């Protein structure tokens, strides 16, 4: 019996030739990640357990991104705990404000996570790195403390659901629309405890940025991980970033899947997820005319360079609607610089947008764009739960950067085709 790519990575990291779904294993981790919210709790647990030295100072990443640059005294204290621990333990992958980025954009960009790796992070969107052909998943702070002590984490080997996307995508249909469609189809617990393996000819044409968006939202379907087999696009992406060896794993032809789900992408149109669950997915056309107060373009889901290019293309030559606030947040310092170089920042500012330094900020209702009672936002983020971006009676609509940009111009949810004649 063959193995899936997920099984193979588990087998390799637990020193076994074969692992099967349901098996409980102890595996070695290549990278263990935490941020300014989960890190301090993990550090406290690490110390309580008598931890003196982390298992490997090169394999831990501590990224202040959620409430950083610190929004208040309490968040400054959290960042300080992270910073001091990083100094004390000589953590290699600690990135200070001014060099940092949202963890799930920063780690792949800097070549810290690579194909074939086993990565855990005290952040649920750690599943993003599956786009590189790595196994990566979110854990809590105690699991992370355990990994910082031992270099290990326990897992139950998951069954895999395979999602095959074929055909040619329609104009303005992006990786975000494909994953929203998928979550809308299977529901927010449709892949609970399962590995989601994304494949098919439609994926071959997707850029790495779009693939990261898809793997990022595996957790929104309850998935343990979202994973794609590496191809030329992947290898091209990691070529000049990797500073250590890595291994490419592929699923065997006779690997066993719990379920195989086929999508003809030609039938998929640009999507929006309505409040208050990411599974409430409809075509943009069915949500048109919903008036909005704010648009957020950013986050670990859609704050990468291509996302910014796409939004700028839609917005170029237009003004943000007079009663809408458009807040643009590049996910990393590198993206921020590239946007300036390419003139994208200028496009946004000319249109009347705010362009911020990298931060998670409003995505989790932290700061930089909190919603008042009754307000509505279109956001390129990943969650639209009650109170996610502010007041419990505010609303978040999830979309691609193109739909978000068009909505900012129209002041209501809008298809990019309403604002521009061009195509992506």
């Amino acid at each position, binding site marked *: 019996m063959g193995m899936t790519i997920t099984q193979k990575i588990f087998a390799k990291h637990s020193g076994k030739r074969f692992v099967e779904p349901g098996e409980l294993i102890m595996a070695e981790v290549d990278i263990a990640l935490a941020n300014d919210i989960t890190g301090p709790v993990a550090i406290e647990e690490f110390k309580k357990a008598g931890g003196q030295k982390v298992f490997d100072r090169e394999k831990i990443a501590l990224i202040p991104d959620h409430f950083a640059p610190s929004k208040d005294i309490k968040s400054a204290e959290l960042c300080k705990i992270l910073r001091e621990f990083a100094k004390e333990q000589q953590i290699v992958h600690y990135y200070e404000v001014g060099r940092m980025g949202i963890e799930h954009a920063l780690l792949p960009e800097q070549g810290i996570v690579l194909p074939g790796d086993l990565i855990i992070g005290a952040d649920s969107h750690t599943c993003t790195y599956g786009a590189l052909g790595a196994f990566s998943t*979110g854990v809590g702070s105690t699991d992370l403390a355990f990994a910082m002590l031992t270099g290990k984490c326990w897992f139950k080997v998951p069954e895999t659901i395979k999602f095959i996307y074929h055909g040619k995508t329609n104009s303005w249909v992006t990786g975000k629309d494909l994953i929203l469609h998928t979550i809308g189809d299977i529901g927010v617990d449709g892949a609970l405890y399962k590995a989601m393996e994304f494949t098919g000819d439609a994926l071959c044409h997707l850029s790495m940025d779009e693939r990261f968006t898809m793997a990022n939202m595996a957790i929104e379907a309850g998935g343990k991980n979202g994973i794609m087999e590496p191809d030329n696009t992947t290898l091209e992406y990691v070529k000049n970033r990797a500073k250590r060896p890595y291994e490419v794993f592929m699923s065997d032809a006779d690997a066993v899947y719990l379920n195989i789900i086929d999508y003809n992408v030609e039938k998929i149109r640009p999507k929006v997820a309505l409040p208050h669950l990411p599974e409430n997915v409809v075509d943009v056309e069915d949500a048109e005319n919903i008036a909005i107060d704010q648009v957020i373009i950013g986050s670990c889901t859609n704050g990468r360079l291509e996302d910014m290019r796409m939004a700028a293309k839609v917005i170029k030559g237009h003004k943000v609607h007079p009663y809408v606030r458009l807040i643009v947040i590049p996910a990393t310092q590198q993206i921020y610089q590239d946007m300036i170089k390419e003139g994208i920042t200028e496009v946004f500012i000319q249109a009347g947008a705010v362009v911020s330094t990298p931060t998670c900020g409003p995505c989790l209702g932290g700061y930089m764009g909190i919603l008042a009672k009754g307000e509505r936002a279109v956001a390129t983020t990943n969650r639209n*739960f009650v109170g996610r971006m502010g007041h419990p009676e505010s609303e978040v609509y999830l979309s691609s950067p193109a739909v978000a940009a068009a909505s900012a111009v129209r002041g209501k949810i809008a298809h990019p085709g309403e604002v521009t004649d061009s195509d992506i």
Partner: protein
Amino acid sequence: MIFKGNAWVFKDNIDTDVIIPARYLTTTDPKELASHCMEDLDPDFSVKVKEGDIIVAGNNFGCGSSREHAPLAIKSSGISCVVASSFARIFYRNSINIGLSILECEDCIKNIKTGDVLEINTDMGIISNVTTGETFKARPFPEFIKNIINAGGLLNYAQEVGGNA
């Protein structure tokens, strides 16, 4: 362990943002977290809940973020145990790791109402509704997870088995 308390019933997909909203994540103090537990669904929850009470919920309880603050907030609000039809994966791990008792049972949500008195035997996985006289059986934990629970959480377990975990 045996728990007895009143039931608080919640629906499917209770996410970590309503269990403890991110605006309160600037603290790690369990008492402070507890005072905001579930507040976006029921602003008075933390005042009304009594020591030993039990949460009963539908599918995918604890979905969303990996914040360990969520099970911590529930635990220090006085809730002794959460019984759900299913749990989101990270919440499940976190609860076991920090020692919040959880049980998976699909029949409970349909047959228990807020205010019913429940008695739970976690070792046996038996949930009794004292108010109606019905009993339900929870799905048993795998052996390995039982060991973590019995050790009192993951880090205690790690210390018990030494570096060879």
